[in-house]
C-alpha cells in the first residue's frame, strides 16, 4: 500500500500506539482485528496524503484505468513463472485494488470485514476484488501463463 518499507514500519508503529490509546473507544461492534485493520488503513491513508500523492485520483473511482500494461513488459522480462509475475503485478495495482487483494488473500479477511475496514459497501468491495483478479488474469492470458495450470 505504501510501497516503502520504512513508511510501512512507521505506520504500523503509529497504529499500535493509536490502538493502545483508543482501547477505551473500542465498542465491540466489530471484531478487534477489523477495528485494528481500520486504524492501520486510516494511518496509511494519512501518511500517503501527507506525502502529497494523488490519493484522490487513486481512490475515488472504481472505473479507473489500470496502468498494469505500462509495467507489464518490464515485469514479464524479469520473472520466470506465473506466480512471480502475478506477485510483482499486485504491487502495481491501484491502491484500493491492491489493498483488497492483500487483505483477502494474505490476511484472510472476508469481504464483509474488508468493507468495514475500508468503509466501502460490500458490493463495491467485491467489485474491487473481481476487477483486480480480472486485470491480472488478462495479463496472464496475454503471455499464455494459464497453461502453467496444466
Amino acid at each position, binding site marked *: 500500500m505504501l510501497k516503502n518499507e520504512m513508511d510501512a514500519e512507521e505506520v504500523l508503529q503509529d497504529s499500535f500506539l493509536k490502538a*493502545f490509546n483508543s482501547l477505551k473507544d473500542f465498542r465491540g461492534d466489530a471484531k478487534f482485528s477489523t477495528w485494528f485493520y481500520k486504524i492501520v488503513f486510516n494511518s496509511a491513508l494519512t501518511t500517503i496524503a501527507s506525502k502529497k500523492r494523488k490519493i484522490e485520483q487513486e481512490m475515488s473511482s472504481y472505473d479507473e484505468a489500470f496502468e498494469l500494461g505500462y509495467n507489464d513488459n518490464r515485469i514479464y522480462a524479469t520473472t520466470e513463472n506465473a506466480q512471480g509475475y502475478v506477485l510483482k503485478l499486485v504491487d502495481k495495482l491501484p491502491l484500493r485494488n491492491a489493498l483488497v487483494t492483500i487483505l483477502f488473500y494474505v490476511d484472510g479477511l472476508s469481504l464483509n470485514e474488508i468493507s468495514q475496514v475500508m468503509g466501502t459497501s460490500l458490493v463495491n468491495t467485491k467489485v474491487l476484488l473481481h476487477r483486480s483478479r480480472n486485470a491480472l*488474469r488478462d495479463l496472464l492470458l496475454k503471455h499464455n501463463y494459464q497453461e502453467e495450470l496444466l
Partner: protein
Amino acid sequence: MKKITDEILNDYIDNQLDGASIQELKMDLYNNEEALKKLKALKVVDNSLKNIEVIHAPEGFTNRIMSIIVKSSRKAVSKVSYFFVSVIGLFTALILAVMGFAYYSTTSSTPSTEKVYSLNKISEYLSQFVSILQNVFKNQNITTIGMILTVLLLISGYYLLESHKEFKNKLKNLS
C-alpha cells in the same frame, strides 16, 4: 447456452456458486474455449495470490512498540498524579487559611467589631444548617429518605450489571 460472465467465473473461484450453477458452468465450459482459458488464468491468479509471502515486522519491532507504549502510559500516569497533587494542595491551602483565620480571630486580644460580626454570622448560618439537618432526620423523613436511597441503589445496581455484561461481551469479541 448461458453467457459465462466474469462475475460467474469469479464467484466460481470464490466458491460462491451452488451445486446446480457449478454443473451448468461446467457444461457451458465444454463449448466455450475462451471462457475456459479465462477460468484457467483466474485459477493461476488465485493460486499465486494464495502463496503471497507474508512480510513480517523487523526484528525488535515488538520491543520497540512496547517501550514506546510504556513510556506514553507513564506520561499519562504522571499527568494524572500532577493534577491530583495540585487539587489536594489547593484544598490543604484553603483549610489552612480558614484555620489560620479562625485562630487569629479567636486569639486576637482586641477583636474588631467587624470580625465579631462576621464570626456571629458564621455561627448563625451553622446553627441554621444543623437545625435543617435535624428536621430532615426526624422519624417520618428517615423512612422516605431510606426508600429513595433504596431505589437509587437498585437503579445503580442494574446499570452496574449491564455494564458488566457489556464488558464481558467485549472480552468475548476480543478473543
